[in-house]
């Protein structure tokens, strides 16, 4: 009899504790940047897709899959019409300064003249800039909203993806440490 009474009080408390724990965990994840609308990339730890893009500036060679070999690359999809890209752009030069990381820009569904004007205004942190006027390479990478950035290792395997703008926290705590580790291996 006493046992039944005890259970009657303990069960709701246990259910509450479970629910509390679950919701706290989800809130923690959201705080870490894992919002429910974030779609995890299926390309993590897979070979980057095949692409061959024309350069934005006529004196540059363009950007193709084979360029990924032998170095750690950050591929940043941006567009002059993309508002969060503006904010992110300030932090890209910080990545570009780290030895052993090449930052490549891809102007996603942007007019070349707009992209060059944008870079002239905000500065050009990129090693090279290529254009993806119809967003086809973007689709191959699984881009669904700019900006998106991919960290690709020396063998051309995608190791990390940032959907949305790179923030100083993400750059310092995840991107650069991971890039340095990939460089040593």
């Amino acid at each position, binding site marked *: 009899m006493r046992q039944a009474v005890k259970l009657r009080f303990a069960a709701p408390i246990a259910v509450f504790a479970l629910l509390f724990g679950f919701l706290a965990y989800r809130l923690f994840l959201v705080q870490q940047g894992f919002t429910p609308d974030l779609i995890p990339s299926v390309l993590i730890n897979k070979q980057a897709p095949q692409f061959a893009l024309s350069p934005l500036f006529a004196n540059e060679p363009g950007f193709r899959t084979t360029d990924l070999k032998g170095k750690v690359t950050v591929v940043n999809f941006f567009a002059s019409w993309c508002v969060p890209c503006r904010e992110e752009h300030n932090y890209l030069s910080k990545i570009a300064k780290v030895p052993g990381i090449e930052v490549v820009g891809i102007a996603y569904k942007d007019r070349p003249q707009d992209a060059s004007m944008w870079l002239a205004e905000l500065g050009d942190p990129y090693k090279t800039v290529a254009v993806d006027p119809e967003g086809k390479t973007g689709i191959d990478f699984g881009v*669904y*909203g700019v900006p998106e950035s991919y960290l690709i290792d020396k063998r051309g395997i995608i190791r990390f993806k940032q959907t949305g703008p790179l923030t100083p926290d993400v750059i310092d705590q995840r991107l650069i440490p991971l890039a340095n580790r990939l460089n040593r291996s």
Partner: protein
Amino acid sequence: MRRLTFAAGLAGCLALASPAFAVRPDERLADPKLEARAHAIGQELRCLVCQNESIEDSDAGLAHDLRILVRQRLVAGDGDAQVKQYIVARYGTYVLLKPPLTAETYALWFGPLVILLVAIALASIVYRRRARPANDVKPLSAVERRRLKALLDQPRAEEA
């Protein structure tokens, strides 16, 4: 007569009206059979920008690009499953509005059934316990019976 004309006109309008889709005329394929297949595939693919609309219903730029891609794959001779697989390879199974049955989605597919079974089990336990006669109740003792009789025989306050 005018009423009849009005009704006929209304019926005509309704018959001509087609459901609104975001597909632009220039995206449509000339071959109606291929276009129908593309439309059916597109309705099962999620627009990743809006996330609750199919690419056929969404006005987002990416949905437009994916509609064109689906049609290009079909024209190139891909089967329906191949086209879907092409998109899934890039965006993951999340793009499918009907979640496939995989190890990841077992909780989604069987979770409700498990919850229903647990609820039935709990309900049957509770009801069985309630229906059971209270056989652990001791009969009244002689003293208790006398006290009960005295209480019942007592005239009620308002009668007194």
